[in-house]
């Protein structure tokens, strides 16, 4: 092989090496290999005596040209590398991103939204009523006799004109049944008031969600199934539900509903007071006396009603142990939700 061919061979060998995207250190090594004092091109140049005399000038300029090309290409690559590393180090990517302040829904609101969403899926509309009610709608129409101990169960705020701050959302049922004909299927969220001393577990006002379904052939089995589905959706698939007979003037039969404690799974803990159950609300079949008060034929229609305290459930869910936190509105509290 002639020395001329050797020059071509080195050129293609270099090109291949350059094509394999050498790192900065590789480029330095290539520089030494091809251009160094003891590099391959100098070695080759030393063999110039072996070339025929008339082609020595040609051979020399060929090697010089290759040297220049290799030098330029390597320097170009090295500059590329430097530029790359320089642009990275110019920006401190660990600087904080610009903060976009997020607003928040109050935990009572977000709990209520969760409720609405689930009941909406189950075909319930939303109905509302005022916080100040007549005694007729708050008590009488709901089958509270004037002298019954049941009126003691809820200590009521009265206005000077004998109206009351509603003690439950149930008067909305009365309004709804007077306004609409069955079928009626609504939930009724709202603020209610109780004349109780304020402490970690009690506040003079709180929020309830009431539910009502009146139609032909409404059964207690369906009431149970509806609430059970609600609880599974809200608390989780594995929650268990327990119904206990209870007493409310406006339902008969009446029931309390408990869910298995989601903290201890029913084994008993501080939150469920070692019972394994958490009381979440009351329910039952609409009492015929209530139907009578709103002029619905209780032989033709049946209905169920239920009610749950939003604060109570929000507190369970978020681990809040003092109800007053919900009404203090400390932004450091609010921003957690």
């Amino acid at each position, binding site marked *: 092989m002639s020395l001329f061919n050797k020059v071509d061979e080195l050129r293609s060998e270099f090109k291949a090496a350059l094509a394999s995207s050498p790192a900065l250190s590789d480029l330095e090594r290539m520089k030494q290999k091809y251009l160094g004092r003891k590099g391959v091109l100098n070695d080759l140049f030393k063999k110039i005596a072996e070339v025929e005399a008339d082609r020595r000038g040609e051979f020399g300029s060929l090697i010089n040209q290759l040297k220049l090309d290799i030098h330029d290409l390597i320097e170009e690559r090295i500059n590329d590398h430097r530029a790359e590393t320089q642009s990275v180090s110019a920006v401190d990517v660990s*600087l*904080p991103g*610009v*903060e*976009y*302040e997020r*607003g*928040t*829904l*109050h935990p009572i*609101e977000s709990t209520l*939204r969760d409720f609405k969403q689930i009941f909406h899926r*189950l075909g319930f*509309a*939303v*109905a509302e009523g*005022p*916080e*100040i009610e*007549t005694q007729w709608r708050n008590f009488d129409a709901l089958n509270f006799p004037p*002298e*019954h*101990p*049941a009126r*003691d169960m809820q200590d009521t*705020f009265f*206005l*000077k004109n004998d*109206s009351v*701050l509603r003690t439950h959302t149930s008067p909305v049922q009365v309004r709804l049944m007077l306004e609409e004909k069955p079928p009626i*299927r609504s939930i009724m969220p709202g603020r209610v008031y109780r004349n109780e001393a304020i402490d970690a577990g009690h506040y*003079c006002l709180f929020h309830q969600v009431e539910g009502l379904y009146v*139609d032909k*052939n*409404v*059964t*207690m*089995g*369906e009431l*149970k*199934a509806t609430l*059970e589905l609600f609880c599974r959706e809200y608390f989780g698939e594995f929650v268990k539900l*327990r*119904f*206990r*007979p*209870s*007493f409310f003037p406006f339902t*008969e039969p*009446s029931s309390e509903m408990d869910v298995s404690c989601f903290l201890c799974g029913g084994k008993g803990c501080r939150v469920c007071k070692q*019972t394994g159950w958490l009381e979440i609300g009351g329910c039952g079949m609409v009492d*015929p006396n209530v139907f009578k008060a709103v002029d619905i034929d209780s032989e033709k229609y049946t209905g169920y009603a239920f009610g749950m305290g939003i604060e109570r459930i929000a507190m369970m869910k978020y681990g809040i142990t003092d109800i007053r936190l919900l*009404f*203090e*509105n*400390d*932004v*450091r509290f*609010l*921003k957690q939700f």
Partner: protein
Amino acid sequence: MNISYNWLKDYVDIDLEPEILAEKLTDAGLEAVIVETMPDFFKTILVGHVVSREKHPDADKLSVCMIDLGDGEPKQIICGAPNIDAGQNVPVATIGTTFPDGMKIKKAKLRGVVSNGMVCSQRELDLSDDHSGIMVLDQDAKLGIDMKTYLSGDDVSIELDLTPDRSDALGHIGVARDLAALLGVDLRKPSIKLTESSTKTSSMVSVELEDTQACPRYAARIVRNVKIGESPAWIRQRLQAAGIRSINNVVDAANYVLMETGHPLHTFDLRYIEGEKIIVRKARDKEKIPTLDGKERELDDSVLLICDGVKPVAVAGIIGGENSEVKDDTTDLLLESAYFDPVIVRRGAKKLQLATDASHRFERGTDPNGITYALDRLAALIVELAGGELTEGQVDAYPSIIKPLEVTFRADRCNAILGTTIDTSDMSDIFHGLEMAHSEENGVFQVIVPTFRPDIEREIDLVEEIGRIYGYNNIPLPAHFSIANKTNKKTPDQMREKIIDHLAAIGFNQIYGNGLLAVEEHPLVFGDEEALLLANPLSRDMASMRSSLLMGMAKVADYNINRRQSDLKLFELGQVSTLDLDSDTGARETSHLGIFISGELQPKQWSVDSVAVDVFHMKGVLNSIYQDLFGHSLLFKSQDHDLFSEAIGVYLGEEKIGVMGNLNQINQALKSVSGVYVEVRISEKLGLGRDIQYQKVSIYPAVERDLSILIDSHVVYEQIDETIRKNAGKSLVYSRLYDIYEGKSIASGKKSLTFRLVFQNNKRTLTEKEIDKDFRRILKGLEDAYNATLREAI
């Protein structure tokens, strides 16, 4: 109310652990939990027998006792009580006992003699205040058992939390009745054997009922020559499990029968009953009676009295009189068993502001036909415990008999309501278990409802009984729901959710304020609010309903600012109420939205400057709600307002809906609060959202031009903006004010405004010439109207 597990077994055969029993009762509506009525340290207090007692060699007042704790190896214990003696059984705190006050019993030397424990007084065991000597236990007590077992007989207490309708379950027999129905076993009521003397009770006392409405029935018996003393262990243990302290054999007997039958009874000392009669009548106005609790009570005719021939001796169904109380030297007793109207007892208890065990039961309704049984049971028990002579017969004033109700009950109706398929024979078993006599034909029952169940009057009440005993948790769940085919009404709720979501999305924190305020805390935000006052407020600072959201918001702001949280973006959407005589509640309720911003709207960050709050931010927030969400334009007009500096009235069309501005100091207490506040009434007229119709987006390029003008300072933005729009022609699609400048380099009395104008056409590309023409027309309009001049064109 606490009941005893052992006691229940007298009336019904139970083969269930107490925990399971409590669960069964709970599932049937008698909420039950096992409770520990005795303190933990009783476990190491053991019954010991004093084998010998000798004087301590070096201390006069101490005794050295050898006490057998049942293991046959008597222990040496030093005791300082004067009453300790050989042969007694005593409670011994053994080594390792820790008393509630922290005192620990250790092996100790007292004046050189070793003591292996301590003999306890009643006070040391917290059983009474008696500390005169050590407590002496029953002679036949088993040695070595702990105090818990000694006192309760190894019983378990079950606490019942009863609903007010279940007066029948206020005694062991009532609870046992539910258990009998639940377990399908028989209820056993104690049979009574009476030994009566030949003296007729009716010859010794008569009963007159003046008000048979208030007292339909009153029965009495007399026992003579009883001996008041201590009750035997079995009765003390049972009362203990039921949470009742033993007093003496007669009082204990009355309490025992109360806890057995649920029927309250009263015992009088016969020697103080004058005139050989009992009169039941309403109290006279201002009539007085000294009651058992040592108070003198002044009465009126809302209270029913039990009187003898001369004076009142008890407040019917509530509390006995001090003047006829049974004492240690009482020998002759008059026993009362009566039925009082629940309403009269309730009113009386309210008047006296006194709730007793008896009033609790009478208010909820007792059994008028169960009183002779309870009376006989009491008489027999007293004779058993305290001896004496029972005179013949009851004196029973019961002029008109209260008959049990007969209720028609349809089995298929019951199944239709519960969603069950219970058959009639199972229903019949349940009625039988509940002691409800009945007949049945073709699924229709005639049920006799006993008078001990005043809560049951109707078919639906019996449906609950079936459901409750069958078990709510056994009612099957349908696989499908029936959902009515009906369109749901759109409600303002959806509108409010939109507003709340929007504000949260743009960085605001929602608050829920207290709706109750002090009467003087009603800043007039709208100027016409008249606040509603509570008749029975919880406290002075919560005596009225909020008439606006401002005060609640200011309090929340103050709370946070005082905790170094002063960059606030808060809002509340809630109901406020004001007086309205046209409404049947006397109130008008409106939804209000209050928004508060203080401090910096955006904090300074390394790459972003801080933004201070001003009233135009609030204007922008409001516009984003009204315009962007609901498609309504607001108008803003400056006004005077005590609560705000630079107040701005907010208008929706002609209607003023709110006010905003920089808050002035509301009161001294809230002086830390400053910021921008707006409060608007949210009316249903807002609708549920903007009506959206798609507008085609132009495919032709938009061209921007900036317009800078010099104009008289007094010309307001609104006028300039209107003039631009009027003269712009169809191609101006957007205009935005982006700079205002007044001051140096501008003639005084003038200001410079710069607008960014954007021109675009739907059908073609606009030429420079066309845009120039529009631009010049806009400028000319401004020149003509307000003498504006072009400052520089960019």
